């Protein structure tokens, strides 16, 4: 996907500003390039205005903040014990006392969903970090080194893409065993190939721009250029990708915990909660509907925010 499209803007820019220009001109161009980038850096007020014009993105951010609070301090939102049930109050529908109703042994479902947040969110975060770190390093090396290294890494990525992500995750879980962390690692590794491709195309885009050439021309070593110039300028799209991957990671993690490969039984992982309500589908709709709705809203919010950030990023470029 990336090869031609990624190379074209860079080469076009070079043909435009490079031909017949002196090194000094180029250096000034590079300085101007950087200056315009830092001038566009958003302030808090501009950020606020950006969200005010996009109510959907603002709502998405708000929901994710609530989810974050639930993950970090679950007792602030739901002070009860997620594992303790009152058998006399089992299988009650949603009410003022039990917002999400109660399950078959009288545990409050809202408390369980809130306390399960940290399990699901931390698993998704581990998955994103694993995918982004490994994928970015591979993409960075691939895009920067070029030649044979590039070819080998990209062919490997092609092969990984031939195996559907969920099946790759399942194969890794088969080898590593069950558990939240293993599920997270498996989901992360399954996303490495696509992350490395995107990172590579970003690196190629940045590598061919004028200020990198200026940095090289003023005598900086490759490693310094890579760490000080290429990396910071490639991170924007990677952060957007991270938010987008986060939504997908929540889906994958909860699907795997739904299938029973996550944390063992009483742990209130979101996918496991949906699975736990399966046997009571006919009588107690809330046991599957409400945890599932929580997952869907969180994924939707993460995807919406990623789309907002992405459109802003491309608009600015």
């Amino acid at each position, binding site marked *: 996907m990336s090869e*031609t499209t990624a190379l074209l803007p860079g080469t076009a820019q070079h043909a435009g500003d490079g031909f017949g220009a002196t090194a000094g001109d180029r250096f000034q161009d590079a300085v101007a390039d950087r200056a315009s980038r830092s001038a566009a850096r958003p302030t808090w007020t501009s950020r606020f205005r950006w969200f005010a014009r996009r109510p959907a993105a603002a709502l998405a951010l708000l929901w994710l903040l609530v989810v974050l609070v639930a993950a970090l301090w679950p007792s602030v939102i739901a002070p009860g014990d997620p594992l303790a049930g009152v058998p006399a109050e089992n299988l009650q529908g949603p009410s003022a006392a039990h917002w999400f109703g109660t399950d078959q042994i009288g545990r409050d479902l809202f408390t369980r969903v809130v306390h399960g947040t940290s399990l699901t969110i931390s698993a998704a975060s581990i998955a994103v970090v694993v995918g982004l770190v490994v994928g970015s390093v591979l993409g960075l090396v691939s895009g920067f080194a070029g030649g044979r290294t590039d070819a080998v890494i990209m062919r490997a990525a*092609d092969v990984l893409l*031939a195996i559907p992500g969920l099946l790759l995750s*399942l194969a890794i879980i*088969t080898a590593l065993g069950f558990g939240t962390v293993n599920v997270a690692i498996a989901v992360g590794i399954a996303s490495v190939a696509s992350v490395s491709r995107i990172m590579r195309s970003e690196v190629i885009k940045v590598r061919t721009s004028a200020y990198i050439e200026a940095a090289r021309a003023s005598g900086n070593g490759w490693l310094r250029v890579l760490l000080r110039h290429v990396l910071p300028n490639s991170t924007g799209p990677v952060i957007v990708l991270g938010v987008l991957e986060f939504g997908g990671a929540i889906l994958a993690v*909860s*699907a795997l915990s739904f299938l029973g490969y996550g944390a063992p039984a009483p742990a209130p992982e979101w996918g496991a909660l949906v*699975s736990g309500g399966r046997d009571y589908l006919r009588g107690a709709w809330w046991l599957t509907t409400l945890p599932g709705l929580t997952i869907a809203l969180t*994924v939707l919010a993460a995807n919406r925010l990623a789309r907002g950030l992405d459109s802003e990023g491309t608009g600015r470029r």
Partner: protein
Amino acid sequence: MPATTTNRSSTVRYIASRLGQSLIVLWAAYTVSFIVLYALPSDPVALLAGGDATDVTPEQLAELTAQYGLDQPLVVQYLLRLGGVLRGDFGTSIATGRPVSEVIGEAVSPTLQLAGLAFLIAVLAGAGLAVLATYVRGRSLSTFLLGLPPLGVAIPSFWFGLMLIQWFSFQLPLFPAMGDKSVASLVLPSIALALPTGAMIAQLLSKSLATALGEAYIDTARAKGADRRRVHLRHALRNAALPAITMTGLIVGQLLSGTVVTETVFSRPGIGRVTATAVQQQDIPVVQGIVLFAATAFVLANLAVDLVYPLLDPRIQLTAAPRRRRQPSVPAHAEDPVTAAPAPDIDAVLEAAR
């Protein structure tokens, strides 16, 4: 198809080179799955013998390990198993002792029915939604329709399947909630399986339709007096569909892996159930067989697209020179105004070529 002999031999060479590349991808997929499944530490034999149960002597354990060839060095195991695969022997299931090819073979048919119907639903609903969303004049209606695919992408498919059961099996007893006995039992699972894929197709196609509608040849067609519907379906959709068609391999893989969840939710037999059980039992040979099966489906779908694509897009010639990847060449052509302009005449070009 090209008529002259030189063209025909170049077509043959093209197909041969694509076949060769496909085999290399399959070999690489085998190697990757071997590394993941056999090189990472796991002890399926101990699990088979009853986990940490103490009634199995170390000697019996060693015998079982030897029986499955798990005691040999990794390189030897790799070569032995690769040799077996080349002869059509995909190993023996550790949990049941049956050949892997048999375990997978008998599960293929119900999964093909499910995935086939889901493919149809995903393509028709996804493309229909994309066409409708870009066709309607009302701004709010269009915004609403364009808001649906992101929703479909965000909904967990296992949850959606359970919701379908709740609504259309329990509250309105229209379809059976589980089993594979009738055609009606296929309806809900295939809709559940089609949701994420259909939403992805709708997102992709509505984006490329919007781009196509801004191209110059659309103005040309309008100026020549073609009505709005004709321009939309005959001209814009035909060009916009091309990038979506290159995603076929991905879609097939997504549907196939989606059956793991769907078949579990709807208690149907098939590849997905076999996978879920094999992972549960750490049945490594079966899991590897399924990974290979999925990679083969992916490769075959891509091969089919490679062969059909030149028929759909006459700007692409069948050449023996192996293109490194299919996707980059397409946008490059599409952005070229000279080659993009005659695209509405695909019919005429195809007729002439025949």
